[in-house]
């Protein structure tokens, strides 16, 4: 049994799996069900002045027969009165004292309203605050959410307001709808944030109905851009987490969010530098019970790797991400087909022929089929054929070029010296 306990900037939880601030954390009823299933923490659905929602709020992005590869929403923050939420938070904390409850907050960018909100909320026993600077629709039009998150100085200022009043750690949740996420992250750090969490949802238009020509989803024929999340956004989230984790000016703990569905996803976030992860879409798809599989999987993984605790994972791959100029130009891999497992779909052939480097040959066999043979002297090792092969029978093999490691940067330095 490995130690799954996590500690994000002083916020402790029995495992690194938190529910992100979203519909699954709308109410005490839900959060208690989640805790009963094993979730380590929950970021409450964002509190603030209660809003009015529209109906027809979500849409799924399906890829072939896979449903909800991505998801989008045009929902706003909580639509329930603050008192009610606070009462339920207190009940949850009493029932599950070992779990982390974080209050997500949103307010207009003025000192007094923020002080008032923070003070009121921390009257109940909470473990931390998360500042929602990420909601990409509706709230941003009213000068909140992503409207703040896109301005590093505003983030800094509001974070300062909150820190002035807060008695518990403050996490700043970042929007991905920026060109370089390190700038808002640095703003949060300058404002004194104890941690950052990312990503919130990505601006998206899910689609257009081919018969009515209405957007999807539509509210009486109209829609606004929504926020995109779910498995499809994981690579974007990983990149942003990695950027923040490597930035010396950020240098505060990270809660990773975006497309986490299994323990495997969580491990990737941790390896790149997140201390814990938050989950929304996967729960919306399958319910709270998925956390049991996540806990089991993480445990077994750590045991199999001989690791004692999740802190042995955090950041272990952080420095494997660098800039392109540092990559070894003399590293070479090539594709090789295992003829025994090949089912002769020719997908690798046409992919390389039409979209890569024309170096897979179809060599006729006596039985009328073909051997798929890679012309190894021309293969550039791009991986495409391996990616399209439906039976994983193409291996990318490293070949020894006999040359020492040399990056573009090093090569240029030699050339110019």
């Amino acid at each position, binding site marked *: 049994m490995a130690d799954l306990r996590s500690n994000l900037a002083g916020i402790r939880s029995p495992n690194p799996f938190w529910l992100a601030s979203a519909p699954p954390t709308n109410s005490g009823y839900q959060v208690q069900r989640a805790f009963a299933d094993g979730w380590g923490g929950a970021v409450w659905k964002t509190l603030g002045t209660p809003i009015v929602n529209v109906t027809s709020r979500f849409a799924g992005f399906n890829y072939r*027969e896979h449903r909800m590869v991505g998801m989008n929403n045009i929902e706003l923050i909580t639509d329930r009165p603050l008192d009610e939420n606070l009462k339920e938070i207190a009940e949850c904390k009493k029932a599950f004292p070992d779990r982390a409850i974080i209050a997500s907050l949103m307010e207009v960018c003025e000192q007094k309203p923020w002080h008032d909100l923070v003070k009121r909320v921390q009257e109940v026993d909470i473990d931390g605050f998360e500042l929602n600077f990420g909601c990409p629709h509706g709230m941003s039009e009213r000068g909140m959410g992503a409207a703040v998150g896109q301005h590093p100085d505003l983030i800094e200022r509001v974070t300062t307001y909150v820190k002035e009043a807060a008695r518990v750690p403050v996490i700043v949740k970042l929007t991905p709808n920026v060109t370089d996420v390190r700038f808002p992250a640095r703003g949060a750090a300058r404002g004194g944030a104890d941690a950052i969490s990312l990503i919130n949802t990505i601006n998206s238009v899910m689609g257009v109905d081919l018969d009515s020509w209405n957007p999807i989803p539509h509210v009486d024929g109209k829609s606004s851009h929504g926020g995109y999340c779910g498995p499809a956004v994981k690579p974007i989230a990983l990149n942003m987490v990695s950027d923040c984790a490597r930035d010396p000016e950020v240098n505060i703990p990270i809660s990773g969010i975006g497309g986490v569905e299994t323990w495997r996803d969580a491990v990737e976030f941790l390896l790149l530098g997140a201390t814990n992860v938050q989950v929304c879409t996967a729960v919306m798809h399958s319910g709270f019970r998925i956390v049991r599989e996540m806990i089991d999987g993480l445990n077994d993984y750590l045991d199999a790797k001989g690791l004692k605790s999740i802190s042995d994972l955090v950041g272990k791959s952080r420095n494997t991400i660098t800039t392109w100029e540092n990559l070894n130009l003399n590293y070479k891999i090539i594709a090789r087909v295992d003829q025994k497992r090949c089912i*002769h*779909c*020719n*997908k690798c052939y*046409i992919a390389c022929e039409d979209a890569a480097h024309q170096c897979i040959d*179809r060599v006729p066999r006596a039985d009328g089929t073909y051997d798929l043979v890679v012309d190894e002297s021309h293969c550039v090792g791009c991986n495409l054929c391996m990616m399209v092969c439906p039976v994983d029978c193409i291996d990318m093999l490293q070949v020894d070029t006999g040359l020492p490691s040399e990056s573009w940067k090093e090569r240029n330095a030699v050339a110019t010296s």
Partner: protein
Amino acid sequence: MFPGKPIQKALSHLEVSIEANRCLYCYDAPCTRACPTHIDIPAFIAKIADGNIKGSARTILEANPMGASCARVCPVEELCEGACVYNTESDTPIRIGDLQRYSTDHVREHGIAIFAAGPETGKRVAVIGGGPAGLSVARDLRRCGHGVTIFEAHERLGGLNTYGIVPFRLSSEVALWEAQQVLDLGCEVRSGVRVGDDVAAESLVKDFDAVVLACGMGGVPRLGIPGEEHVWDSIEFIERAKTTGTAPGLGNRVAVIGAGNTAIDALTCAKRLGAACVTMYYRRGEAQMTAYEFEYDFAKEEGIEFRFFCAPTRVVVEGANVTGLELVRTSLVAGTDKLESIAGSEFIEPCDTIISAIGQSRLITAIEALGIAHDGGVVRVDDDMRTSRAGVFAAGDAIFEKGAREAMVVEAAEQGKIAARSIDGYLHGSTSSP
């Protein structure tokens, strides 16, 4: 209505979606190579997956004018599905036939017309036989704008699709819809007209710019045993069963002679019509059966019994009624495939009806009336379906030669396509006939 459930059930929408998305969209796909009409299978399946069902049906029917019936009657295990890359230890092939049925059902059920006749050329072609081969020629000739008159001995079009293929595999409704698609392109039909009897073959050659012989094959040949006149012809039996849903006088115990696909059809038809005890008698062994393995399996599932190494010698008749079939035991001469009867081993199997399914005879009269060369009733054609006589073409079972091609609807469709292309060339004078 014919009793019993159809062999094949339409896929549900979910099954269609899963199956269509499972297809790998292979390049130079082996399934397409294995289809005698070379339907672009990955393309038609991709169109199902992307929601263009009409386009999917067009891809199918463009290549195969009998695409709707083929979806039901093709021995897919031997053709497209047998070649699918998913034939591995752990996977099952894509259900190509079922997906093909889905797309063609869509256009059938929604009354979507896909093809249109070409601009009229003023040329006229006589098509003898309105089965799969004749209909395929007719459709493609109409698309080229040539006038078509179909001479069909039966009342209705479709050939064996309408009258011969067991109803639990292919309903005549689908067969007739498919024929109607061809007629909708503007063909003249002379049904109930047997060329040779009702109209002279020679007059067609004179009156039309080209003639296609697509008359298929005939009934079951003679067994050559005493009491033969009491034996039913399997093709006629299936036709009657299919058109009326009954078989008066069938009785409880039915003996079927032969071990090909038609024998299986007669056996399973008889069983479904209520005969309690239906038995196949074959003079060779299980290993020599010509029926497809999946057909044999189907017959076993239907509760058919099998007797091997026995040959019929006499029909036992009491009064006007059949009471049994006398057979003699046979064995293979060691080391050869020759058969010999074992003297004195005769035995009588009690039965009420005997059905012969030992093959199909040839329509030699029609062939000779056209004055075209044949080999024992197999019309001789070149690769372009040209017979020995200029302007006369042939396709389908009429040119079926044991061992060379298969007698299948899909082959008839392909040959019909080729014949139409060839006739079009001939009528435009670009190809000269030998």
